[in-house]
């Protein structure tokens, strides 16, 4: 038996097919954690030197190929960290001279072994609170109460910071381990005052600066933005910051309070990091939603899973939606941030593929060929990718097997969500008649499914659109986030 050599690929958490770019990224991530200036545990400096040696070899193409030649056939060098379950709407696709659709439901969950080994990961949480004039009264009071509740739930190793912003930002609590001294923090929260406008970028920037000081691969870093207003003109800067956050492994979630905030902006902002935007219709819901969000953060197995794939000619993702743990529409272009995996709550994503006519000689179609990049503080390796390749055979005649029931069920709700998207776009372009028709169809289906209150909301909104030629301030959000909530699988719905 040959002597056991250190596997450089395993050390960096990479597959042998890794590109130079991936090698570099993986190295930087691990090096940041293990560098003698920042490492904590004994022995990490030695590990750092080994990782450095691995990187020196792998980053040089000539040395890498020499090293590769010494390796035996590839075994699975990576421990299986996640389990994937994939359901297709059809097991095979027909050879047709026209384009066709295929639906794929992907579940990603930690393996039983990983779940057992999971221990508490420190949290690095930053609350970015809108303190503009419109927050005055019950809204800010509930926000304060909810923030204090969260402070009381923090563990000693958790890092916590709070930013208040209106047209400027103020660091209320700088990022720090509070070490049990929560009283002082609570007082600072209680002293928050309202006034001024809403400039979200300033708040986010300040939050980012605080959280970044402790952001490392061993903590779950997350910004929660609470706002009730619209920001004007700084949206592109906010998106840019969200992209930076995603790169630094910092998640962003948003809570929109009342009806005046810009849901399209918030949805877009959080999508870069795989986060979620939530709609808070009444101040009393702030507490519940914020606590729920906090509970989810403490349950995190992986902060974000990114699906990175090469597009196959003739195949495109025409729609992607996360069903759980938190429902949200997803980007369609690779890389797609899919979102977090919780310990007991798998990540579940529904995708629609548009497949162009299949050529005569082709006997299979490749839907996805790429990898899932799993960013997880709970896992030992800083950076893990799991290869995913999904192909479907092409047949001249296909068996008329019905699609899996769970897929059809999810899709029935998603169809309603997409009707709502259509109606919004139609109101936007002035096509009111078409919009009300679509909403009418939605209401009919919702009634048939027993969702009476949602159907009623839509009926009222139809009247409003006919009269005012636009959505009411709260109606569009109620319908959007209401239909989104229907998509949560049964047992998780409240």
């Amino acid at each position, binding site marked *: 038996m040959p002597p056991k050599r250190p596997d450089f690929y395993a050390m960096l958490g990479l597959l042998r097919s890794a590109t130079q770019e991936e090698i570099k990224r993986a190295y930087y991530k691990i090096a940041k954690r293990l560098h003698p200036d920042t490492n904590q545990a004994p022995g990490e400096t030695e590990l750092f030197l080994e990782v450095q040696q691995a990187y020196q070899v792998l980053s040089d193409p000539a040395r890498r190929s020499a090293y590769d030649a010494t390796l035996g056939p590839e075994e699975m060098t990576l421990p299986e960290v996640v389990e994937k379950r994939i359901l297709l709407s059809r097991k095979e*696709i027909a050879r047709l001279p026209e*384009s066709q659709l295929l639906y794929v439901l992907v579940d990603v969950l930690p393996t039983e072994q990983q779940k057992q080994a999971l221990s508490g990961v420190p949290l690095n949480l930053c609350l970015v609170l809108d303190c503009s004039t419109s927050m005055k009264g019950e809204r800010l009071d509930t926000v304060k109460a909810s923030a204090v509740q969260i402070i009381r739930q923090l563990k000693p190793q958790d890092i916590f910071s709070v930013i208040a912003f209106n047209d400027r930002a103020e660091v209320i609590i700088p990022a720090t381990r509070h070490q049990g001294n929560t009283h002082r923090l609570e007082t600072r929260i209680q002293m928050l005052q309202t006034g001024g406008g809403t400039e979200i970028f300033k708040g986010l920037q300040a939050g980012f600066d605080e959280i970044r000081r402790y952001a490392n691969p061993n903590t779950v870093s997350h910004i929660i933005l609470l706002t009730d207003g619209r920001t004007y003109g700084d949206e592109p800067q906010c998106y840019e910051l969200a992209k930076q956050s995603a790169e630094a492994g910092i998640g962003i979630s948003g809570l929109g309070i009342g009806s005046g905030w810009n849901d399209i902006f918030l949805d877009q902002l959080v999508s870069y990091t795989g986060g979620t935007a939530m709609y808070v219709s009444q101040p009393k819901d702030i507490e519940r939603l914020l606590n729920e969000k906090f509970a989810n953060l403490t349950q995190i197995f992986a902060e974000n899973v990114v699906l990175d794939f090469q597009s196959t000619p003739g195949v495109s993702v025409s729609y992607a939606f996360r069903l759980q743990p938190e429902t949200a529409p997803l980007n369609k272009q690779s890389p797609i941030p899919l979102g977090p995996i919780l310990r007991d709550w798998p990540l579940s994503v529904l995708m629609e593929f548009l497949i162009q006519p299949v050529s005569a000689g082709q006997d299979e179609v490749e839907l996805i060929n790429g990898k899932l990049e799993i960013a997880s503080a709970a896992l030992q390796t800083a950076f893990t990718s799991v290869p995913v390749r999904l192909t479907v055979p092409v047949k001249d005649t296909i068996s008329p097997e019905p*699609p899996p029931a769970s897929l*059809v069920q999810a*899709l029935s709700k998603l169809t309603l969500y997409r009707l709502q998207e259509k109606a919004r776009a139609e109101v936007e372009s002035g096509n009111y008649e078409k919009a009300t028709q679509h909403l009418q*169809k939605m209401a009919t289906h919702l009634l048939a499914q027993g969702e009476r209150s949602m159907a009623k909301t839509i009926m009222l909104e139809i009247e409003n659109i006919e009269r005012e030629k636009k959505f009411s301030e709260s109606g569009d959000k109620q319908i959007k986030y209401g239909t989104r909530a229907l998509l949560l699988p049964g047992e998780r719905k409240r």
Partner: protein
Amino acid sequence: MIVCPNCKHQEADGAIFCSECGMQLIQYTPGDTHRFDSATGQLDEVPVPEPHVQAPAWISLHLLESGQILPISDRMEFTMGRVSENQPIMPDIDLSPFKAFDNGVSRLHAVIRNNAGNIVIMDLGSSNGTYINGTRIVPNIEQPLRHGDIVALGKLKMQVVLS
């Protein structure tokens, strides 16, 4: 290409729901219908009546394509249509085992009534209309039926057998 039977919107092959009206596009296989029957326990009797009916049937519908004969005895008035998931509409006679969906039968298509021996049919505002011997009848107005008439619900043809 799939054409939504409800709103005529064209969907790419493989679609499961219509993106225009939200209707489910997968057709009901007989297996599906059976499952539905046993779940509700109500529909068994109507589409395929017992072979040993006590009262003599006053009308039978002879489905031309499948050759099956549906005798009706126990009621003097019955609606015809197609049971569809997600819809609370229940016709007295569910024609979905006879490719009602393909043939453009509406969920509540037409009613046949026995007014003391005068047998009439009325279209209930169906999408694809009701025809007697090839002539489309005006919706919501009763038309007399005679022995041997060919009635078509959309494209689903049946011969009326009176006794």
